[in-house]
């Protein structure tokens, strides 16, 4: 394998890893929506 091929594979692997981590992060991130009709007490 020449240098360009090696760099290409490394680039693809890095991109895949980044997308995978990003996907897991987004999927696992809390997606809570703030509720309506409440108030804080004691302020």
């Amino acid at each position: 394998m020449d240098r360009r091929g090696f760099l290409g594979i490394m680039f693809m692997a890095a991109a895949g890893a980044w997308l995978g981590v990003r996907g897991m992060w987004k999927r696992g991130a809390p997606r809570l929506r703030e509720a309506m009709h409440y108030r804080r007490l004691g302020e």
Partner: protein
Amino acid sequence: MAKTKIKCELCPSYCELGDYQKGSCRARIAVDGKLYSLVYGKPCAANIDPIEKKPFFHLLPATTAFSIATAGCTLSCKFCQNWQISQASPEDTDNADLPPANVVELARDNDCRTISYTYTEPTVFYEYMLDTARLAGELGIKNTMHTCGYINPNPLMELSPHIDAANVDLKSMSPDFYQDVCGGKLKPVLDALIIMRKEGLWIEITNLVLPTLNDSTEEFKKLSGWVAQNLGPDTPVHFSRFFPYYKLKNLPSTPPDTLKKARETAMAEGLHYVYIGNMRSDAENTYCHSCKKLIIERMGYYVAKMMVRDGRCEYCGTSIPGIWK
């Protein structure tokens, strides 16, 4: 320094919550001085149902409703027929990821004329329902809910312009029944019904008839009289047959004669459209209150005959109350 407490003002339970505490509905949590919905865009049930299943008998008969629910409920009825999801926390149910835009898209793609917020208590997914209803309304899809009516006036009035119809469970006319069997109060439900009427929602009432608990003739009379007087005699009432579920497995199913008695009592109180649900009989049909002819024949959720055109009886031309287009 003590953390700020939150008071949820969505339903008459008025839960006061410390940090990371959930409301009694299980669907809302306080975090760092803010209240969050745990169920926004996370339905635990999504189905296409006949509108008759809700039940709505005077709203677009023989059409389908895209129906959604999330986990949780504002009440804790011992007879709940959907307790597996209504009395569960959102983390214990299998939830889909379905934001409001996707609900509306699915409803439209499946030719559903309505979206129904149902199965559990839609008040617990208030924000999700409101956002979905707004979007659906813009596309001409009607919005309906099946609710216990346990919601405070302000949120109800904010929601009402976006909801076309409500089927409200009026479980009893006894405050003690609401306290002991449902873990709630009767008065807020009656207040909510009057607000819905003032706000122009189409209302149908469901009363689940429980042997020994709410099946006296006096109770039927009181309920029907209140509906006739406060919501009008054209308000359809569905007396529904109870089957032993959840915490009331000790009770038998409602005897058919009790349901027939309930219907007779309600009609004697002046109600025009009284139905019996969860049981096959002639009382699942609609009869014109003027000429008494059969105008909508139903077989369970199937509409076999439809003699209402443009909201009028095809035999005598009398206007039939409801939403027909």
